[in-house]
């Protein structure tokens, strides 16, 4: 197959896959670690205009390689299909990291944000999760309910100690949202829109032999106006759409404090995360607003292959907090209950059935069901 064909749409996808398969087919553990995670789904929902549908899930290609004794590099590219037939190819992770010693690894590039346990441990592979979906407020940027930067571009340090204590700390570009459209949070890959960087930190206790594993998260994040240079400002203009502020101007300064817990004993497992978010309005609003996002997930393993999971997720905020309205169009708090049954055929593939009930203070409650077959190749 020619990789040099015009790289658009499905042609691009075939090209990438041909290259990936050629490499993977000769891979050895020492030379290059490559893999593909994927999933296929069937969905049902009572949301208006949604039909029962088969759908391609994401195809996630990654490679990790030690380029010398202490330096490793990773890339992760995701292919996603959308209802209109569009295919997007996005670099999800792309970094290089030097392992100076066990207590200090230093890297640069695009990482998953050290935001609680979920975001840096399940990534984009559904096979890793106990449910098909992520907690709704941890959706990846661009998702309909994404409120946090789940990726960062910057430098990240991490390390662990013999007693199980681990740390992750990062300095990164600030984030942006384009108030003239509803495309969600923007993670600037190449140029920061302002001179104030974002900071992320997490301390955790991650000894796999212990049942109880807690973690603490802190984030200081600046969200800037990402509208085009020539966007019309809303003040004094009747032209729609207009931007809240000039490009690069600070919209919201966020302080976030989080706590996560994992507990595993026998057949039971618990995973919970809670975040207090302070949104300080800089433009397009005034004052500070506090909000709370949390989820608690309980799992019970029926046998070696079957896992039953229930999760409650909630985002609670002041109705007059403009951040959530501007970013994701949410005008009232909402919560979701997720029930899932997972059946592992083997280590490499699993079938997951999930029903989620979305409860909104304003707006219609909805129920969605997903059947997903998730797998890893190579």
């Amino acid at each position, binding site marked *: 197959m020619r990789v040099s064909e015009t790289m658009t749409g499905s042609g691009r996808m075939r090209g990438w896959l041909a290259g990936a398969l050629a490499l993977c087919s000769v891979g*050895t553990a020492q*030379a290059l*670690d490559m893999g593909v995670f994927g999933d296929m789904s069937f969905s049902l929902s009572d949301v208006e205009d949604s039909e029962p549908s088969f759908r391609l899930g994401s195809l996630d290609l*990654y490679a990790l390689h030690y380029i010398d*004794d202490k330096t490793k590099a990773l890339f992760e590219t995701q292919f996603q299909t959308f209802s209109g037939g569009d295919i997007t190819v996005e670099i999800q992770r792309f970094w290089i990291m030097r392992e100076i010693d066990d207590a200090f690894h230093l890297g640069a590039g695009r990482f998953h944000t050290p935001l609680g346990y979920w975001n840096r441990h399940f990534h984009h*592979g559904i096979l*890793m999760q106990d449910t098909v979906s992520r907690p709704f407020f941890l959706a990846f940027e661009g998702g309909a309910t994404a409120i946090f930067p789940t990726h960062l571009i910057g430098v990240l340090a991490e390390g662990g100690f013999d007693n199980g204590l681990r740390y992750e700390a990062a300095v990164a570009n600030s984030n942006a949202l384009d108030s003239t459209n509803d495309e969600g949070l923007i993670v600037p890959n190449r140029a920061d829109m302002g001179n104030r960087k974002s900071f992320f930190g997490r301390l955790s206790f991650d000894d796999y032999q212990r049942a109880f594993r807690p973690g603490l998260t802190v984030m200081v994040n600046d969200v800037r106006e990402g509208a085009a240079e020539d966007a019309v400002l809303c003040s004094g203009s009747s032209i729609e759409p207009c931007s809240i502020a000039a490009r690069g101007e600070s919209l919201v300064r966020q302080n976030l404090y989080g706590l996560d817990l994992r507990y595993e004993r026998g057949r039971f497992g618990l995973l919970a995360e809670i975040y207090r978010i302070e949104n300080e309005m800089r433009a397009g609003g005034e004052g500070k607003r506090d909000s709370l996002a949390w989820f608690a997930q309980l799992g019970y393993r029926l046998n070696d292959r079957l896992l039953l999971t229930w999760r409650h997720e909630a985002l609670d905020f002041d109705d007059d907090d403009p951040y959530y309205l501007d970013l994701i169009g949410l005008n009232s708090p909402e919560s979701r209950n997720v029930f899932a049954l997972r059946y592992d055929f*083997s*280590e490499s593939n699993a079938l997951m059935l999930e029903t989620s009930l979305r409860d909104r203070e304003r707006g219609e409650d909805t129920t969605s069901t997903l059947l997903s077959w998730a797998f*890893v190749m190579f």
Partner: protein
Amino acid sequence: MIGTIGGARVLARSISMRLTAALVVVLGFGGAPAAEAEVMVIGNQQLPVSSLSAQVVADLYLGRAVQLSTGQRVEVADLPVGHPVRDEFYSRILGRDPDQIRAYWAKRIFTGKGTPPLVRGDEAAMVRWVREAPGRIGYVSTGAVTDSVQVLLRGSGTE
């Protein structure tokens, strides 16, 4: 290291390694055939233990532990994918087949939880590597064990 070279050379080297591993298996230079091989977990003579349980060996080879209960930090190494002694080791000591191990490491790498053990080219190279530094652990078939290393666990798990 392969990683400092360009992509084409990585590919060529990988193909070469894979073909070498296949030849080793086909020609029988990799040790006794799988049905006859008894796997020995071996360690450097300076290790502060004389035996290990299958559980400890599994924890080390699955990247869940990097040190012994004595506090001694250890490194472990694998034989190449497809090597009959490697398959025997994972089957007898860890109770997992090659596909399970491959999927296990794919998930660990993807989630940033670790990378698989380094690979030694053959059993003689494994013994040399274990002998060269304290804290090193490997596995070979019975016939490849020398006096320069100590046996920590037999494949049947009886030691």
